[in-house]
């Protein structure tokens, strides 16, 4: 019996390792093609073209009075010709609305619209008296959360494509150009959504909603997350996009086909993982209707977000992610190994089920069992260490592989020292695994307890250089 167990565990270990290698290979292929293809792309023609589609950018704001002016300014100055910004004030209890009304000379307009998707009551729609701000629409609504605010924005916007933006991101000026391109290249398959790479802004110099200088985070936790994000975005999602199994477009920034989102019922307010749930629901619907579609991913850095720098905030974020994952997987359990959904059902969903949801639970049991073996002195130390070395070296080499991808693609960290720091973080990272396992188990327990809501994460603000008007973008 013991022999069987030992081999089963080892076989699963090998499957995991093999999945990494396969994803790495697919990702490398996709990246190489994208970069080659992109080296001939002239985005400028899209900026000036009268043929480029009109886009709505929807951002939700809750108690952002200190930063709202800069944030809106940043959004209004994005490098694209044909867009509107819809800012949703989600029932802020501070003077967010007053600040923005005053600065952008807003007045209430007689806006007639449909509640295509249910959302909390919209108290008013504002437009500016100043023609310079005619791209801006502000919605004031009763508090209902991020998903609800985005739904309100979708109800108001009239363009066929909309970009949803997270509350605490710094947007790259050319991000809209890059996001919209997959929709313009659409052929036999309808493009229903697209996402891109999210980078980490901790320790970067930020001024008036723009990044002045990129630095690797000084603290260990954000630095480890740089590694994690690089691996996830450049190795994982790129490969899943190529395999047509992409299940997540980050809530920080993504572009969607409005009609498909409305038909799907908009963002779900019942889950904290509304970004993943939306993609799953859209994909599910398209597959059930027999429509050829695709969810695409571009490896360009689109926006920068602040990540937790202390354990408490990290725990809040990660337990929330786990809850979102469990809720999304449970809601769409029909997809699991269902060939109707093609690769999503046979590859993408099972992968997330086994390796994202189930993995930490098994790992947690493993930790407990290991402790038991140590306490009862029944551990095979030489072999234990050998296996540890196997997993450790494999994990570190995958991380270094991801660093190489970053180096040959976007090369954002210019200093040699930064790369060396990143490499040393790769060596340290495996020792933080137990902490992440704990967060994931805790998230699962929260689901069982029926916990809802986002929890509170403490943000430290952006790094400042000299005298600041440096404010975080937090629309």
């Amino acid at each position: 019996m013991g022999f069987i167990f030992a081999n089963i565990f080892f076989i699963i270990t090998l499957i995991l390792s093999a999945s990494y290698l396969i994803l790495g290979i697919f990702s490398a292929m996709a990246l190489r093609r994208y970069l080659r293809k992109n080296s001939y792309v002239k985005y400028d023609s899209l900026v000036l073209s009268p043929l480029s589609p009109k886009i709505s950018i929807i951002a939700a704001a809750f108690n952002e009075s200190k930063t709202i002016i800069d944030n809106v300014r940043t959004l209004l100055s994005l490098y694209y010709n044909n867009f509107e910004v819809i800012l949703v004030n989600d029932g802020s209890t501070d003077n967010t609305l007053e600040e923005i009304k005053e600065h952008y000379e807003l007045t209430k307009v007689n806006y007639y619209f449909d509640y295509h998707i249910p959302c909390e009551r919209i108290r008013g729609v504002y437009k500016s008296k100043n023609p310079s701000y005619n791209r801006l629409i502000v919605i004031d609504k009763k508090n209902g959360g991020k998903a609800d605010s985005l739904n309100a924005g979708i109800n108001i916007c009239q363009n066929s494509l909309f970009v949803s933006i997270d509350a605490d991101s710094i947007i790259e000026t050319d991000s809209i150009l890059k996001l919209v391109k997959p929709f313009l290249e659409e052929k036999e398959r309808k493009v229903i959504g697209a996402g891109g790479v999210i980078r980490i802004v901790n320790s970067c110099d930020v001024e008036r909603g723009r990044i002045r200088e990129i630095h690797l985070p000084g603290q260990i936790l954000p630095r480890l997350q740089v590694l994690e994000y690089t691996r996830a975005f450049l190795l994982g999602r790129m490969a899943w996009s190529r395999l047509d199994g992409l299940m997540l477009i980050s809530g920080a920034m993504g572009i969607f086909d409005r009609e498909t989102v409305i038909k799907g019922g908009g963002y779900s307010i019942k889950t904290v993982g509304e970004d993943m749930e939306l993609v799953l629901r859209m994909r599910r619907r398209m597959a059930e209707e027999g429509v050829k579609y695709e969810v695409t991913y571009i490896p360009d850095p689109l926006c920068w977000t602040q990540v937790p720098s202390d354990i408490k905030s990290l725990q809040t974020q990660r337990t929330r992610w786990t809850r979102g994952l469990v809720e999304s997987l449970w809601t769409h359990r029909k997809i699991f190994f269902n060939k109707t959904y093609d690769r999503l059902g046979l590859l993408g969903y099972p992968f997330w089920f086994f390796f994202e949801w189930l993995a930490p639970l098994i790992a947690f049991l493993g930790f407990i069992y290991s402790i038991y073996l140590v306490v009862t002195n029944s551990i095979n130390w030489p072999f234990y260490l050998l296996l540890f070395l196997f997993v450790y070296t494999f994990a570190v080499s995958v991380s270094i592989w991801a660093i190489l991808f970053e180096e040959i693609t976007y090369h954002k960290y210019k200093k040699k020292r930064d790369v060396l720091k990143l490499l040393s973080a790769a060596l340290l990272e495996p020792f933080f695994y137990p902490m992440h396992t704990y967060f994931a188990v805790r998230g699962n327990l929260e689901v069982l307890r029926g916990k809802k809501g986002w929890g509170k994460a403490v943000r430290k603000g952006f790094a400042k250089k000299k005298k600041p008007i440096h404010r975080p973008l937090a629309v």
Partner: protein
Amino acid sequence: MIRFTLLLILSLLSANVGRAYPSSSVTHDTLKAATFLSGTRDTTEKAKTALHYIFLFKGENQWLNKKNYFEKSLVFVNALIAAIIISITTMIILLVVILLNRKRMEKEEKLHQYLLEKYQSLIINFLFGNASPEEFRSIASDTYRRQVLIDQMVDVSLNLKGDERKKIQSLYKLLSLDKDSIARAYKHRWHKKIKGFRELAFMNIKDANVAIYKALNSTNEILRMEAQIALVRLCDDNPFEFLSHLTSHFSIWEQITLHDLIIQHNIPLPSFQRWLTSPNPTVVTFALRMIREFEQKESEDNIREILIHPDPSVRYLAVQVAGDLDMRSTLETMKHMYKNQEYKICLEIIKSMGKMPDISMMGFLKLVIDKEDDVQLQIEATKAIKNNGEKGVKALVKLMTSEYKNYNIIIKHVLDRRIF
């Protein structure tokens, strides 16, 4: 990270459970292999035998059933050791690649900068001064340097016209750089071909047109697009002829790129209405867009005909273009087709009616406001009525007092000038 954790734990579990095996001492075979490995008898043959013992797993091989001091099958242990060695080697190689790549990039950047400055001044000197081609030759000594020179010449040629442009094109040929570009155009790899096409198109060299024509039917969409663009630049007689032979999907991105090319380089315009009858609907949409952008109003009759095109994307665009170009002869057709169209086209019909206000359509538009439930249709129909000037506003005022339906909110929305 979670997946790594699982990896770690699963492996460790394998070790722990392994304890359940009966512990056995090191066997004779194991010792034999260990002796071989320790290098006491370091002949090639012996080493081969050692490898055979360790890595050739045959059913009868006793090694499969023997245990070593790890208390596991030696095959298993060796596989792990091999995996660890591979991982460490990969780590080291990747590390070296990362560091060397950085160094290479820095070096290349410096050289590139130097060459750019050098070539720029030489080109300016050649065009407006007395620099000779020999000076270029002395610098462009290898493939990399030649490539930088080609890129630079292409960049400069973009901003030149007339004699200067011809002069730089002749220099290109004089330095035999055209041979590099032609060779590239015939390369097997698509990204190299594209580079060749681009260079040839900018330098107006037609010697590789055969290769470019061939790429028009390529399954690679990027290559196909670049071939189209190159041909538009290189064909003097009929630059858009390729549209007549295009059977594949002509994406909006390709259309935007081509439109940009027409604008940027003053490409002579054909009458795009000839492609309104193309069997490829994406070619028809391109023709419609170009008719609108270049205001080819003589196409009105053809556009009226394709309002009933079987492809909805063509119908949608035809309605839009008719409105944009104020083609009033299409109004009646639009009115009649309205009830059989999908929502998107219905909305576009109403918008187009708003763009070409006509009193005779007011009755129809009122009907839309009354009968349709969709807010957007109601708003657009109200806007279309309003666009009829005084008569339209009067009709709206009358509607505001109607008891049949509460039109106030719609009309207020439409009359608010800040909303558009």
